[in-house]
């Protein structure tokens, strides 16, 4: 069974590109456009990895990340934070909250795909 990836982002065009890239990599994809949707899909879709945008309406990526890490069932889920905010503090905050990787937008597509592969194979 293929690995499952949840993409959480509110920029439609970025979602399209991520969806394309991950499908190409052979993963099952689900998409969420805000925090609540993301939490719902985490419960129903059981992804192995989450590509998580930080700047989301209502509930930002940090909070979602925290929610994932607080739930023992979701402990195995890998989290890659995607953000257009490239400040040092944001990176530190992300890793402190339990993200496995932090990718700054704009990202190199190949690097992102490789990173996803690597993280999912290591499991």
């Amino acid at each position, binding site marked *: 069974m293929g690995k499952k990836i949840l993409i959480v982002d*509110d*920029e*439609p*065009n*970025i979602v*399209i*590109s*991520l969806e*394309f*890239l991950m499908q*190409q990599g052979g993963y099952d994809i689900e998409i969420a*456009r*805000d925090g609540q949707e993301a939490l719902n899909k985490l419960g129903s879709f059981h992804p192995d990895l989450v590509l998580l945008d930080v*700047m989301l*309406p*209502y509930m930002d990526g940090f909070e979602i990340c925290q929610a994932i890490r607080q739930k023992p069932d979701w402990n195995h889920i890998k989290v890659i934070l995607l*953000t*257009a*905010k*490239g*400040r040092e503090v944001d990176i530190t905050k992300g890793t402190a909250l339990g993200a496995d990787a932090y990718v*700054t*937008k*704009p*990202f*190199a*597509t*190949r690097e992102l795909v490789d990173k996803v592969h690597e993280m999912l194979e290591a499991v």
Partner: protein
Amino acid sequence: MLDNWVILVTSFAYLLILFGIAYYGDRQAGLKKSIISNPYIYSLSLAVYCTAWTFYGSVGRAASSGVNFLPIYLGPTLMAILAWPVLRKIIRISKQNRITSIADFIASRYGKSPILGGMVTLIAVIGIIPYISLQLKAISTSFQIISGQPEMGIGPQMTQHEISQVTTFYIAMILAMFTILFGTRHLDATERHEGMVAAIAFESVIKLVAFLVVGIFVTFGLFNGFEDLFAQALSNENLRHLITLNEQTIGMSDWVWMTLLSFMAVLFLPRQFQVAVIENVNEKHLRKAVWLFPLYLFVINIFVLPIAFGGLLTYPGGVVDADTFVLALPMDHGQAGIALLVFVGGLSAATGMVIVETIALSTMICNDLVMPILLRLRFLDLEKRRDLTRLLLTIRRSSIIIVMLMGYIYFYFIGEFLPLVSIGLMSFAAVSQFAPAIIGGIFWREGSKRGAMYGMLAGFLVWAITLPIPSLASVDLLPQRIIEEGWFGYFWLKPYALFGLEGMGKIAHSMFWSLLFNTGLYVGLSLYSRRNSLEHTQASRFVDVFRYSDDKELSVTWRGTATPADLHSLLRRFMGKRRADHAFSQYAQQRQINIDKLPEADSDFVQFIEKLLAGAVGSSTARAMISTVVKEEHLSVEEVMNLLDETRQVIAYSRKLEQQSKELEAASAELKAANQRLQELDRLKDDFVSTVTHELRTPLTSVRAFSEILHDNADLDLSQRQHFLSIIIKESERLTRLINQLLDLQKIESETMDWHLSPLDIREIIQDAVNATSQLMKEKGVILTEVIPSQPVMVHGDRDRLIQVMLNLISNAIKFSDADNGKIDITLEVEDEQIRVDVRDNGIGIHKEDQELIFQKFRQVHHAESGRPGGSGLGLPITQRIIEYHQGEIWVKSKPNKGATFSFNLPLATSGDRELVEAFSE
């Protein structure tokens, strides 16, 4: 009738109890466990004001003149109001200057003048001796009555005279011994007599209880309560006048004078000064005392009138002296126990007064009369004597005996013939001569020694010729014609009608003239006399006592040097070696210095010693003694004035410094706040940059991602390739738009924007914008309705910028209008010199709380359904700034799901504005 031995045993037992209390009080004080340090004991000790005169005499006075006994107790009540400003200041001054008596107080205030101190002492002694004699008389009379020696009353019956004299003499001597034991165990008069105060407080309780008991006995035992008594008195022809306040009994002015007199007495009688000021433990006790003491007086006076009426009703026709009603009534009704209690009460009232008064007087006599004289007598060579402590104690003890003896002598020759009340009031009037010098002295810097001295002297003389001396004539010890024809036969020198002033009571008359002369000379001479340096300093020290703290001394009286050894030997001579050593080590500890290593004492040290000495021998003697060991440079008045000014300036300066440091604090607080604001701004700027970065990176992310996808996947099908490319183009456009808007915003905010202002028809602007967006509307299926006037509507403005505004509003409206049935209404109206444009959509609307936010940079409203709206979040902020630049306003009205209306107004251009517009565009 009581046996003599019962009375004697009771009296001695009572005195023994008193002594026990005093002994215990002193011992506790020695252990630093003061038993008198509370406002209740303090208030009770103030009640030493109520003497045997109160105890026996009030009833006598009430019996003869009704409610006229009251002013004597109204005065002290007046004190309740004035005690805080006056008495508190006197207490503070006395504590700071280690004042030992009222004579010392006055002498110290007026340049530590020995003459003034001596004068006050003499006036006090002369004025008070009759008063002491009165107490002796009261004790002996009450003893005779209770032991049943005279059958009725104690009028001037020569048969009893001899017995009375012998009894009184023994009483005087016993009291003298007792006072010596109480009052002169220590030397330092400022070291308070705690034991004595405790005993006095106890006496105040006893006399109150005794008086209340006899009052209750008469009112409820002999009569049926107040109503019955007063009813009987009213129905009695001879008594009726006593109850009502009518013109015949006493004039209004007499009431006022009596009240004033007793007010001054309660402050300035030596014994009152002693308990209220010298023995005061804590200034704060005054707060409670000012109402507790008047309360005490009220309670002790409740039964005065009832007893007087009871006595008058029981003994009609004056067969019994009214002064003795309190004893006679229980005695004649077989209540020996109550009579004995009353006797003890009277004894307590008399002994309390005598003890405190003689202690106070003996201190004054010793410090302000005898010592200054002895020190001036060169042949005694006192200055060389190594130990003067014994001498001082001997003087004090002797003066106690002498005062008591003088009391007795006065009683022997004169006292028996005068009623109690007149003697007491005479003493009051004598001490009221201190009032101008004291009151003036603590509030009026200019008050001078000469003024105080001559004022007091004049007041005293007037007092003497209008009160005590003519009173001798009234008992035939002096020729009657003095009263009738005036002194030396001058009719305008009639003792009771001086300068033809008639119609006043004797006391009021004397008070009026003596205080008039006293105050007049005090003020007049003070205004015209030159004061020496010490007077200046002392005046400052007294008047400004609250300004100088305990430590900050006004050490300017003096400039000179002395050796510590000299000072030590001086102190030792007056206070003994032990206490001198103690004082030295105390000083060394306080200032953290080693006195043995000091080559010479500085002024601070000398002042310390002088104050200690003053506590023992009074300020003027202390001053004189200090000057014998100190090499002084005498300062001129000018120098002292300068120094005083300097001190004041230093104080002012330190206040200024305080003020400045407060200002600095305020400034630094302001800076802190400003810094916080800056940091806040910094943070906002940081946020702004971070947000801009985010906004730029987002389209860039798509551009890069799709470019790489296209680059890496040559085999993509055409439609997908087209789709991705169109995304890249759109995102690039978004990027460009964003950059342009940022630049616009930056230009507007930094005021570097080039505005091209000209008269415009706003209708054209709207039309241009509508045309530019018609394609977009068509794509989304939005229906546009316009309500535009047919006439040109002119404004002044920048054409491109205003088109930008309209484009912004219209494209926002398109974006947010209903997805299926999109409708947009554009309305242009002219009203009151301005135009208004409304752009209305029928979309999801904007929440109230968001309506302000959307005009802020990068603030977009997210909707659950539509997600993130496209756009940079800069459109509305830029629009708002453009409108504001054109002196218009922009606002939004909206309700969720009811669409939103964005409106702005602009000033209508008038033809007269043309020049303005031209000027504007330059």
